[in-house]
């Protein structure tokens, strides 16, 4: 296998963080506001805690196979035939996610930033960069993440500082107006968008990190930090735009950045937020694609996934235009089907793998 590929623990932390922030930062304030109105930020915090629990579970699962990827482990636990079938669910999930994330990017660009350019030009360009990253390998992508992290931090801190004077605290009052249920719903939405897809990192996590022991901690810290950024953005969005406007905007954090106005001089810097998003979404798409391709190669028993990166890029571009025929379909899917699907792939299947795996270990002893 390509097990000579190793990334450092710090690089892994940054990747997990970017991955958690991913599309979440631009989309989640809107769906949280739809679920929990002005309590969206509480829902975000609750979802974050839920996400940490989920990641704790993934770390526990990862300890079962310190030198293998999830795909190889599946084969070991369930046997060749069934293991491959189960692995197919995971790589199908990562393909779907990669395609939808690419669509998000294209849709964002065509609706918000450059309305006269066709969506294909964005998806093709972006898929081109992703494929380039894939062909250069995980190590290069990880180093890129490390280099881009300070820039991400700078952009984030600058836009947050500029937004703080705009906060109007009455926008988040009354707290707990509708009770706990909408908040629970929102927390579930948050966890399923930000944390459950982290299951895909099990295809990277213990096998490709140089110190498997500390990698678990990195996984945890990455989610912790990533979630914090998203909570901050959600809070700003609710307290500045208000619940109504956050809900009605498809990209509230982008609308949020349009509010920045320092002394009538620093204005319209919303592309800062878009810049944050380009970085995080690049890593999200690349990691999804990486796990899809390594998974595919491992299912077929090939040593290297790289020859398949280019044709994969072609398929990805087409599917990014196919998965969501229109925005209404996207919103319907994301609010009704996505959560059960993510729960099945991100919680149910790993739970089965964990129980069967530990049972086998016990029997062996």
């Amino acid at each position, binding site marked *: 296998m390509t097990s000579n590929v190793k990334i450092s623990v710090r690089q892994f932390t940054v990747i997990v963080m970017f991955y958690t922030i991913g599309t979440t930062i631009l989309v989640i304030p809107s769906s949280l506001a739809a679920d929990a109105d002005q309590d969206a930020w509480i829902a975000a915090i609750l979802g974050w805690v839920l996400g940490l629990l989920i990641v704790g579970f993934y770390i526990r699962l990862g300890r079962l196979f310190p030198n293998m990827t999830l795909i190889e482990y599946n084969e070991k636990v369930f046997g060749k035939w069934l293991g491959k079938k189960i692995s197919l669910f995971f790589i199908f999930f990562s393909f779907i996610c990669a395609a939808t994330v690419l669509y998000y990017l294209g849709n964002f660009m065509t609706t918000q930033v450059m309305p006269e350019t066709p969506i294909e030009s964005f998806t093709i360009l972006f898929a081109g960069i992703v494929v380039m990253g894939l062909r250069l390998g995980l190590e290069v992508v990880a180093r890129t993440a490390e280099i881009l992290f300070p820039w991400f931090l700078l952009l984030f801190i600058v836009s947050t500082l500029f937004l703080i004077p705009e906060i109007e605290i009455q926008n988040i009052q009354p707290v707990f107006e509708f009770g706990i*249920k909408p908040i629970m719903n929102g927390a579930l939405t948050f966890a399923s968008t930000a944390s459950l897809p982290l299951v895909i990192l099990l295809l990277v996590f213990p096998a490709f990190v140089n110190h498997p022991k500390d990698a678990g901690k990195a996984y945890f810290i990455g989610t912790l930090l990533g979630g914090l950024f998203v909570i901050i953005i959600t809070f700003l969005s609710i307290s500045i735009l208000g619940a109504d406007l956050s809900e009605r905007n498809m990209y509230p954090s982008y609308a949020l950045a349009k509010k920045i106005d320092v002394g009538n001089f620093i204005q319209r810097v919303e592309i800062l937020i878009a810049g944050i998003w380009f970085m995080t979404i690049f890593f999200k798409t690349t990691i999804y694609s990486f796990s899809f391709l390594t998974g595919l190669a491992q299912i077929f028993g090939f040593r290297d996934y790289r020859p398949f990166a280019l044709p994969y890029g*072609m398929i990805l571009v087409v599917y990014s235009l196919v998965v969501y025929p229109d925005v209404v379909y996207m919103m319907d899917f994301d609010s009704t089907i996505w959560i059960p699907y993510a729960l099945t792939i991100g919680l149910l299947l790993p739970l089965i793998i964990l129980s069967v795996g530990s049972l086998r270990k016990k029997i062996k002893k």
Partner: protein
Amino acid sequence: MWAITGIIVTASFIAMIEVPPLLRAKLKGELWLFSILLLLGTVLSIAKSLQLAIPNPLDMLWTIFQPFSDWLYSFLK
């Protein structure tokens, strides 16, 4: 028409980059999977450029997970 030409040119470029090293290393299995993926990519791209309907995997997920979704949201609403 131009779109199809572009797609075929891209596909041949991809083949030109990837096939010789695979042939040299005599990796038959990889070559097969590569060809299937490339063919799939080309056919799908051409179908998309002709605006033909391409099966959407999300429709399938929709059918499978609708009952689960209804059940889940009956608790949360």
